[in-house]
């Protein structure tokens, strides 16, 4: 599971002005009652648009996230790690299929989403634009990036759109081994030789800033998302999610004797919130807009895979099969 830190489009205050007020009220009442919205139910255009965007981004993050981890399959330390990493990466790609089909129920075909990923029109989780130099980088992703994604996804699974919630439930259930596997890998590095410990410490130093970016811009600078919270599209603010992650995982990292590269990181016991050096949001924007170390490579790998697979799709194509929007 890799999804996280969705970037929401700015919302104009009149975005629901042209919606039918009676239908809109019934829609909001249903969400307030805690009922799920199903594909055949009426929904405001803004709800549809933001959900497609969010679920699609999540799907792309699974596909692209498989690349920095997948690169270590051939060089995994030992047969068991290799088998486990292969299974994990395969899971993530499977999760993308589940997410794409949830987004498809809202009316955007899967092939359109894949094209939009390749042309850069759709985004994916920013963290995968960084390289995995060593095995320890790969372990950081398996343990902590997955952990961050789980924080986000457990929240989203309580959201209002039925097909997305069902996909997330399945994904969360399939995840049970990823987090345990990732933690296991890091415990082995931590309790290994000095060289192994150094290797993970260096990975932690490299990945901490993107990990802090992972949950998206700070609430004070991020786009107004009140309506998305009311519609249960977004289930918590970026800062809430970040705080929850720090609460759960900073003690576990410290327990292993590693140093988190932020001298200001401390939990304020009075407020229950973590305090930290403000992440560099300029860097975050620069990387989202294509300026990261691996943006180009990630998209090129996807594009070339698509080009190379074209003849297979052409060979299989049949006029009897027809694309239609999934039912649920």
């Amino acid at each position, binding site marked *: 599971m890799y999804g996280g830190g969705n970037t929401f489009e700015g919302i104009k205050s009149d975005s629901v002005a042209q919606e039918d007020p009676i239908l809109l009220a019934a829609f909001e009442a249903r969400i307030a009652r805690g009922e799920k919205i199903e594909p055949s139910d009426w929904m405001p255009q803004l709800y549809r648009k933001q959900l497609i965007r969010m679920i699609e981004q999540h799907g792309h993050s699974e596909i692209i996230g498989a690349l920095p981890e997948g690169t270590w399959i051939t060089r995994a330390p030992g047969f068991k790690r290799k088998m486990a990493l292969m299974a994990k990466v395969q899971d993530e790609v*499977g999760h993308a299929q589940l997410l794409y089909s949830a987004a498809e129920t809202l009316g955007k075909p899967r092939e*359109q989403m894949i094209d939009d990923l390749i042309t850069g029109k759709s985004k994916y989780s920013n963290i995968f634009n960084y390289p995995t130099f060593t095995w320890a980088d790969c372990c950081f992703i398996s343990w902590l990036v997955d952990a961050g994604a789980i924080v986000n996804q457990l929240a989203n699974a309580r959201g209002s759109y039925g097909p997305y919630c069902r996909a997330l439930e399945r994904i969360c259930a399939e995840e049970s081994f990823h987090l345990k596997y990732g933690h296991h890998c890091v415990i082995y590095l931590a309790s290994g030789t000095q060289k192994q410990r150094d290797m993970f410490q260096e990975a932690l130093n490299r990945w901490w800033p993107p990990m802090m970016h992972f949950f998206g811009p700070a609430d004070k600078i991020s786009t107004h998302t009140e309506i998305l919270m009311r519609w249960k599209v977004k289930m918590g603010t970026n800062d809430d999610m970040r705080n929850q992650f720090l609460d759960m995982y900073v003690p576990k990292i410290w327990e292993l004797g590693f140093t988190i590269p932020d001298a200001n990181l401390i939990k304020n016991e009075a407020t229950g919130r973590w305090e930290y050096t403000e992440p560099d949001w300029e860097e975050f924007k620069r990387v989202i807009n294509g300026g990261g170390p691996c943006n180009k490579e990630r998209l090129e790998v996807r594009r070339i895979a698509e080009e190379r697979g074209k003849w297979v799709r052409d060979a299989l194509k049949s006029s009897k099969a027809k694309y239609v929007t999934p039912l649920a």
Partner: protein
Amino acid sequence: MNSLDPRVARLPLIGEEGKIVPKAPLDQFGTYEVFVQAKEGKPFQHEGIVHAPSLELAYVLAKETFTRRFTCVSLYVVDTRDVSVTLITEGNQSVYELMDDVKDGVGKKIFEVYHLVKRGKQHMHAGSVEAASVGGAITKAKNQFGAGKVVYNVWIIERNAIRFTNEDDQELWLTLPEKKFRDAAEYKGGEKLSRFLDSMNKS
């Protein structure tokens, strides 16, 4: 391409960076609905969809997508176009109450009936009926399975359109329990962790 990953570095350079020819509508596989039976004796449940060029390949992909981690005893797929769907209702309104009885024609086909009994959940198999048409099947389903309960949505599928699991297919998923490396319970780092923490405390 210049990459840390040797496999990426040796990829053939084809096409143009950032450019993709938009796919014509036909360049998309068909959509197939997937139904899974988790345990012997339990009803089939709608699980999701796959895209495939044919019913047979849809079956293969469905098995890969939906039974990779979860065990199940059986699974089947059907072209989405072969699923007839009623309206969706809410509150205490059963969709059957909105459906007028249809006088069925002659000829007999078997239809599988799926109910949505709780909004937000997935469609469950309610049973099979024999009828000449979809309308006739709904009327029969209403009388046989619809009495006294709220059904929000009904799906009707003609049995002939379904790609069922046969015996040979079933042998394929007997390998699941042996794959310990992807079982969360196999990753017990606790003991190693406590030994490590003890040694840290001593030093």
